[in-house]
């Protein structure tokens, strides 16, 4: 921490100068953050306005009435309840399956010797730079041929195999001392047993971070659901919101209420898990988005 570099004694003016600098720096930074957050703050207040005051002549946060009922209306008008349930189920299933696949892959790369390991690892590394969204057309055609278009199976499957989670877990698994594994093996534990009873408990922090990123990735995902899902009863939240915005005569206050309910869970998750998320992003574990 840089605070510790503050001189305990020294010329009075210098200390005062530093204190003023600290206060000024803090004030400016929080002002920038306030301006930065304005769109989200505005969204929240718009969600509470009467419909005819969304574009009022005078800019104001609070309308003539505060309508919490807009949130209820969004639930019925946009069928937000259905969208929310769909998004939650899809994200939960994606997260569990991704964790299983990534754990197995990471374990093989980090702790097991097998012929061709380096070559396969290289393949995983190379796929990180593949522009995945470019290939949506054949992906769609493939699922259509398999009569799986417009199903959640097709929605979920392609997202399970991104290499980032496997890489993060592998980094953690590499740090586990080999002695633990050797001791378990001498006690007669099978490879499978070692993974479940020794390795997985030790990489639980990495597993939870991977889970959060996978969940958010699914929650935010737009292009693939837009392509593969046709019937509105299977839509996830982003598709519902996008469909809502492209209709003529947008009911902005309801749309903003839906946006608040979509972004709020993200805000809560990020606030609660900020330390772990920042560390994982800093490790470059999940690449750019």
């Amino acid at each position, binding site marked *: 921490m840089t605070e510790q570099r503050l001189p305990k004694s020294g010329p009075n003016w210098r200390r005062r100068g530093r204190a003023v600098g600290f206060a000024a720096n803090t004030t400016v930074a929080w002002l920038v953050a306030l301006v930065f957050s304005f769109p989200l703050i505005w969204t929240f207040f718009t969600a509470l306005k009467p419909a005819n005051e969304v574009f009022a002549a005078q800019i104001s946060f609070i309308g003539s009435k505060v309508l919490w009922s807009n949130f209820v209306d969004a639930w019925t008008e946009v069928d937000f309840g259905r969208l929310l349930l769909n998004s939650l189920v899809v994200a939960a299933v994606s997260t569990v399956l991704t964790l299983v696949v990534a754990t197995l892959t990471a374990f093989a790369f980090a702790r097991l010797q*097998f012929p061709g390991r380096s070559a396969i690892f290289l393949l995983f590394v190379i796929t990180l730079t593949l522009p995945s969204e470019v290939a*949506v057309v054949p992906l769609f055609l493939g699922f259509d041929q398999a009569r799986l278009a417009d199903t959640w199976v097709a929605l979920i499957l392609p997202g399970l*195999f991104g*290499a980032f989670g496997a890489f993060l877990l592998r980094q953690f698994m590499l740090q586990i001392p080999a002695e633990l594994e050797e001791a378990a093996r001498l006690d007669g534990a099978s490879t499978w047993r070692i993974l479940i009873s020794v390795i997985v408990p030790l990489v639980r922090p990495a597993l939870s971070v991977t889970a959060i990123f996978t969940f958010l990735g699914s929650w935010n995902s737009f292009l693939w659901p837009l392509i593969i899902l046709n019937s509105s009863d299977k839509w996830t939240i982003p598709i519902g919101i996008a469909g809502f915005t492209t209709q003529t005569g947008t009911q902005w206050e309801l749309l903003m209420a839906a946006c608040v309910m979509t972004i709020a869970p993200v805000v809560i998750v990020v606030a609660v898990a900020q330390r772990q998320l920042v560390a994982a992003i800093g490790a470059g574990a999940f690449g750019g988005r």
Partner: protein
Amino acid sequence: MTFVDLDRAEEEVPDRSVAPPDRPRDRLRRRPLGGPRWVGWAFVLPGLIGLAVFIVLPQVASLILGFSDSTLLGGTQFTGTQNYVRLLHDTQFLNSVMVTAIFVLVYVPANIAISMAMAMWLKTRIAGRNWLRVIFLIPALSPMVANAAVFRLLFQKDGAVNQALAAIGLGPIPWLSDGNWALVTVIGVSLWQSFGYNMIVLGAGIDSISPDVIAASRIDGAGRFRRLVSITLPLVSPALFFTTVLTVIGAWQTFAQAYVITGGGPGNSTMTIMLYLYQTAFTNNELGYASAIATVLFVIIAIFTLFQMWGQRRWVHYD
């Protein structure tokens, strides 16, 4: 952090197939740690098959489909290079390449500059800077579609931004109804949404600089600017390279912002390549032609990525 680090980590794995000769580990020598040699394959197979089927195969299939006139129900005929000849004369496509190139050339440098500046600023003494970091990160982890919907409201003709401008005697600016301004708006929302992520990656890069190096440069009398140019930037360069490569790849595939805020308009002024690809494939049902677009986009991204990998020797310092 980088691919190089992954390679380095690879070397740290001790070779478990050879037991040290000074220890009596007959059982282990018969069955090396990690079980029989095929066990590793069993663990890696689900991920490998998934990767091959859902990530590698579509890329290859896309390349092949680009030489066909495939439609959803009309079957597939191979038409040679016909799609590519058509692309050369497709003004809408050429326009989308132009629009996306402008987007990339403005968005990527701005993103990296803002991310780096913010990362360095948040290393200075600020009360509650961890919470500031979270505030700037939130849009990057929120649904682009919701963010875009919010900006679509803000930048309406009589929306909050123009009202705020009017309050200080400016505007109104035709944010969404004028082509140039619409592109500015789309770039703006992309920056607002995304820089927080790169800010964290670069912040971690700054953290990894040894305080001794900074202290030594101070003793040698280096000023702020000198330290930035000669110490911070070179030592953060691996992280800068990593973020730039991935940001460029993402920027060429920009889709959701344009889809939600402008729908590609007005007059195709914000029609990105991905949006044109989407419309060609799923509105016009020209899957083969869309695959040809995908191939061109793939090649563009590959050229940019390889060019950066070649260029990194000149400015990226690994030590």
